[in-house]
Every structure is written in structure tokens, then in C-alpha cells.
């Protein structure tokens, strides 16, 4: 279970507060207006934002002082998720061992992950040789082998077309069903939330609100959300 305990995140002069829990295995969409702090919230959980006060707990253990790589977190950023000079297999393999000293079994795991995301036989290619959708799949293969219990998506599919984005979200949904990981996913689009999220966190006015059941919230939005949804 992810617990944000009286958390205040600092990003320059901006402050974002959060105080709630996310159940284990839950898929949560983080929505809200531009600049409200959705990425700041995700970034703090991943360890890229300064925590001013409060705690971040995973399974009861405080993680807010841990290095980003030491946290139980696999994250995809808006862009720059792959190293352009490394092959797809190496990019994915970094999720298992950051020094890329993989055993034969681990190599097999990388191949299996690439197969699983639909990139069979493309392990030797560089990211620049792949389409946008394939690059997203490669990044998801790495998330798969990272095998972390908490997956954070900071709109990694925003540049893809609606059909492709939907396809990626379905793939994420399927992968998470297999691994049982918890998901926090930043999104601009309420239909993304409807598509795979069990719950929604609304970020606005310097606050990340506690997660609420998706359909109930979107069908009967409170005033702040209504203003955002239009």
C-alpha cells in the first residue's frame, strides 16, 4: 500500500500537499489542470522532487529519503525513456541490472519481455529505428523486467495517436494484471481514466485529493473537477 502522510512537496515556490492512501494493486489516474502539479506528485514519489515535510510510505516503510533507484518504483517519463545509443535489448536489460551484466536467464527474461510487448526479434535495433509506438513498447518491456511493485506513468503516450494510445493503455492494463503492480498514471484525458483506472486522484489548487472511484467521480464531478472537464 502506498501512503502519503501529510506530504508537502516543494518545486521552486510551488507547494503541493497530499495526504491519502492508495490500495495495493489499484490502478489510479492522476488528473487535473495543466500546471496543477500532477507531474510534481509523481516525481516526488519517484524521488525527483524535494519533499519538504511529511512522509511517503510503501508497505509501511518510509521511502522519501531513498535514492530514486532504490525505491520500489518503475517510472516512464513524458519523453527520453530510452537511451538512443543503446539497443532495445540493452535498454530493457538495464531494468534488471544497471551494469548490464546479465546472466543467461536474465537475457532470456529480456527476450521474453520484448516478446510480451510485441517486439519479437527487434532487440538488436536502436530506438531511432523504431516507430513511436514501438519505442513505447520497448520502454514497457523494461518496466516489465524491472518488476517493481509501483509503476508511475507521467504521460509517456501523450505523443501517440488515440488508437495507439488506447492500445498502449490496454497493454499496460494487461501487464499490470499479470504482475499485480500498483499504478499511478498522469493523464489529461478523462477517457484514459475510464479506460483502465479503478480510481482517480484530482490535483488542483495546491492539493492532491484522495483517490475516488473513477466512474462515480467522472459521472458526478464535484465543482472543481467539473470546471476542469468543462
Amino acid at each position, binding site marked *: 500500500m502506498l501512503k502519503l502522510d501529510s506530504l508537502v512537496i516543494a518545486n521552486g515556490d510551488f507547494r503541493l500537499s497530499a495526504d491519502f492512501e492508495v490500495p495495493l494493486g489499484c490502478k489510479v489516474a492522476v488528473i487535473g489542470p495543466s500546471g496543477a502539479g500532477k507531474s510534481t506528485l509523481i516525481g516526488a514519489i519517484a524521488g525527483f522532487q524535494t519533499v519538504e515535510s511529511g512522509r511517503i510510505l510503501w508497505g509501511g516503510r518510509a521511502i522519501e529519503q531513498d535514492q530514486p533507484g532504490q525505491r520500489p518504483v518503475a517510472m516512464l*517519463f513524458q519523453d527520453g525513456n530510452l537511451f*538512443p545509443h543503446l539497443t532495445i535489448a540493452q535498454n530493457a536489460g538495464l531494468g534488471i541490472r544497471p551494469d548490464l551484466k546479465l546472466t543467461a536467464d536474465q537475457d532470456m527474461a529480456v527476450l521474453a519481455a520484448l516478446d510480451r510487448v510485441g517486439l519479437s526479434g527487434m532487440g538488436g535495433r536502436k*530506438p531511432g529505428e523504431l516507430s513511436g509506438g514501438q519505442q513505447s513498447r520497448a520502454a514497457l518491456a523494461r518496466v516489465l523486467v524491472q518488476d517493481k511493485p509501483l509503476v508511475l506513468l507521467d504521460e509517456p503516450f501523450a505523443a501517440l495517436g488515440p488508437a495507439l494510445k488506447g492500445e498502449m493503455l490496454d497493454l499496460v492494463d494487461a501487464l499490470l494484471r499479470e504482475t499485480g503492480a500498483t499504478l499511478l498514471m498522469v493523464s489529461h484525458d478523462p477517457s484514459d481514466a475510464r479506460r483502465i483506472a479503478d480510481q482517480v486522484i484530482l490535483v488542483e489548487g495546491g492539493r492532491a485529493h484522495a483517490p475516488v472511484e473513477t466512474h462515480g467521480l467522472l459521472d458526478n464531478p464535484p465543482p472543481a473537477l467539473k470546471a476542469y472537464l468543462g
Partner: protein
Amino acid sequence: MAHRAQPVSAKPGIGAALCVAVLILGSLLAVVLRAEAGRGLGPADWQAVQFTVVQALLSAGLSVGLAVPVARALARRRFRGRRMLITLLGAPFILPVIVAVLGLLEVFGRSGWISQLLGAPVQIYGLHGVVLAHVFFNLPLATRLILQGWQEIPAERFRLAAQLGAGPREIRTLLEYPMLRRAVPGALAVVFAICLTSFAVALTLGGGPRATTIELAIYQAFRFDFDLGRAALLSCIQIGLTVGAALVALRVSSGDGFGAGLDRPVQRWDGQGLGLRVLDGGMIGLATAFLVLPLIAIVLSGVPGLARLPGSVWNAALWSVMVALASTAILLLLAVPIAAAIAVGRQRLELAGLLGLAASPLVIGTGLFLMIHPIADPFAFALPVTAVVNAVMALPFALRILVPRARQVVAEFGRLGMMLDMSGWPFVRFVLLPRMRAQIGFAAGLAAALSMGDLGVIALFADPEVATLPLQIYRLMGAYRMEAAAGGSLLLLVLSMSLFWIFDRGGRWHAET
């Protein structure tokens, strides 16, 4: 942000910077302690100060002013031989000064090609000769520095601009002016600082009371009069001047990168108008002629002597190659960690690099001589001292090449690396070094060739038994053995260029530059 996590440790860089600081500040201290301030400056010394500043200002302004149109032409044109020309642009900067001066004399000298063409002898010695030589050396350096700025604009930006229907003018305001605002002040400051510490050019094309730089005055006080007190006093003035220039350089050179690209090859769609094509072609043609003619002259005059080189020249060549390789290794061990540390926020380490600019080779040489003198025979350390001093001298240039790229790599991939727990050696090995390869190769090439052709500190520590190749050529010239000097120059040219080419090419292998 007290201690934000970073993908690379700054500690090795801090250690390297400390080594450099101890070496340079130690020699400066030795110089200051030895200087006889009470004696004051004579009129000749003041003249040297004035000459040094004036020629450096002229040289920097002319070099960078001409470099901008040349770099722009090279950035937006694709033609056969372009890559070769860009490699050639690296040549004069790393061209051994003594070789280049011989070449410039063949073209612009009293009995040179221009004089013969005009039917009247051109006077090359003095201020304009020194400035001419400095522009010859620094126009290409400035062009490459600015061209690198152009090439750091990702291909995607040009594609986007072309897609938006941007013409040359829009591309200028959208992409080029912001880049130039970052690149030009830095280039100006570097050229100015280089020219402040000009020694070998002044030694060969200047001289006399009206065209003596401070460096040359130090050398003369040291070698001719063995007046260590005066050499030290002049060194203090040199330090003051160059520290000032270095501080300016530090202030004017910072800015943001152009963001991440996907390593697509750069293609340009702008500047197809006839006027711009003629302008670009003309700039490229003129710059090429200015750079190539002296080099051709060296080759033509050097070939006859090459077959009958004395054994002393071959010995000196061997020493020079060993000194150059040692110097390159030392440089990389210093520069790469420092660049990484600067990239993760230790801005002030750039000072360590600029210390190399602040302290000229002859000043450090004087300082080291003063330090070694009481303990041992300084002349016995001629070669190791040369290797170390050359590495430290190359450090500012290496950092100027490495730091922007290191910053960019950390900005683009630092978060991803940390999320994947790659902090430390894995990030260095799999991300930082591979993505900096082209810049590391370029820096190593510069360092090797600079060391190979250095005629500075070795002239102070000269000893009849051991000589590097440039020193040996200088001696042959002094003994009026011009054929052997010309042959040795050609050998030196070939060796320097080969070292540069191997490193630079090695770094750009399989990479669009």
C-alpha cells in the same frame, strides 16, 4: 535543494580539480614570492603589456567576426569534402606554431607568394604579422567552437522549423541567435585569452621593443639574463591580465541546451536562395584558401629535406610522440571527471580549468623551475614537466568541449539513469562516456596535437641533450640549417595531424557530427 541525488559522483572531478589547482597555484605562489616588486616596471615592460593587450583584442575580434559567417555557411551547406574541411579547420589550432609560421612566411613573407605577386616585398614582422598569425590560428578554432553550437541544435529543431515554413531569417531568430548568444562570447573570451599568452608567434614574428609580448619578455629575462626576479615580476603581470580574461570567459559562457533529440542526422531545408549560396560559397572558399595556402607552402618546402633528416630530428620526434601521448592521458584523467562534476552542479570547478588559461605556460614553467631549482636540476625534468604543463594548458579547451555535452547528457538522461539505479559507474560507462564519445575524441585529439607541437615551456627547460621536435626545429633554424628545419617541420606536421585525426575520428566513428 540541499543534496539532490545525482547520477554521477562529483568526487573524482573535485579531486582532479584540486590536483590542477595545487599545481598551478603552487607555481604562481613560487613566482609571486620570487618577484621583485620594488624594482617596478621599465618602459620596455609597459610596452610589452600594451602590445599584448592590443594584439589580443584585434586577434579575438577579427577571428570570431569572420568565424560566424564561415560557421553558418558550413552548418547549412552539404557538399563534397565538407567533412574534410571541418577536420582541416582543426588543423591551424593544433598546428605546431613553428610550422605554421614557416608556412605564413612562405605566403605572406618578404619573399613570399604575395610579395612576388605584388612585385613588392610585404612587411610581415610586427603587430600585423602577429595578428595575422593569430587570426590564422584562431579563426578556425572559433569556427569550430561556433559550428559545434550549430550542431548541438538537434536535427528535430531544423525539421520543425522547416515544417513551419521558416526561412533563413526566421531560423536565425528562432534557433541561430539564441545559439550564437551562448557560443560567441565564449569563443571571443577563449581567443582573447589564447592570444594574451602568445609566445612562439611573438618569438618568431614579433620581437624587438615594439612587438614583444609579456610571455616573450619572460623568456628573454629567463634565458638571456637569467634574471629570475624580473621573469617572476613579469609573470605576475601576465597572471593579472589572464585572470581578468578568464573571469570574463567564465561569466559569458553559460546557457541551456537545446533539449533532447533522437540522434537523427541533421538535414537543412533553409538558405536555398542564390544570394545566400554565393555568400556561403565565398566564405567557405576564402577561409579555405587562407588556411590551406600556408599548409601547401610547408609541404612544398619540406619535402626536399625529408629524405635527409638528421638522426637528432628522429630522436626528437620519438620524444615528442611519447610526451604527447602521456599528456593526452593526463588530460583525459583530469578533464572527464571535472566535466562530469560540473555537469552535476559543481559549477565552480570550471575555475580549475580556467586556471590553466590564467596561468600561461611560461608562467607555470617559471614557477616550476623556481620550485624544482633548490631541490634538483630542473633541466632533468624537461620532458615530464612538458607533458604535465601541456595537459593543464589543454584543460580549458577540453572542458569547453566536454562540459556542455556532459550537462546535456545529465539533463536528458540523469533522471532515467537514477530511476534505473545506474548512479555511479554504470551511468558513466553506459551513458555518459558513450554519449560524450565524439567530444572526448575531439578533446583528446586537441591535447595530443597541442602537446606534440608545443614550443613553450620546453624552451625554458631546454637542455642540449634532450629536445622535442619543435625545439629541435627551432634550433636548426637558429643554426641556419633551413632545409633540415623545413623537413623536420613537415614531419612534425604529419605527426601532429595524424595524432589529432586518430583521436577525433575515433570519437566520431559511426556518429553524425
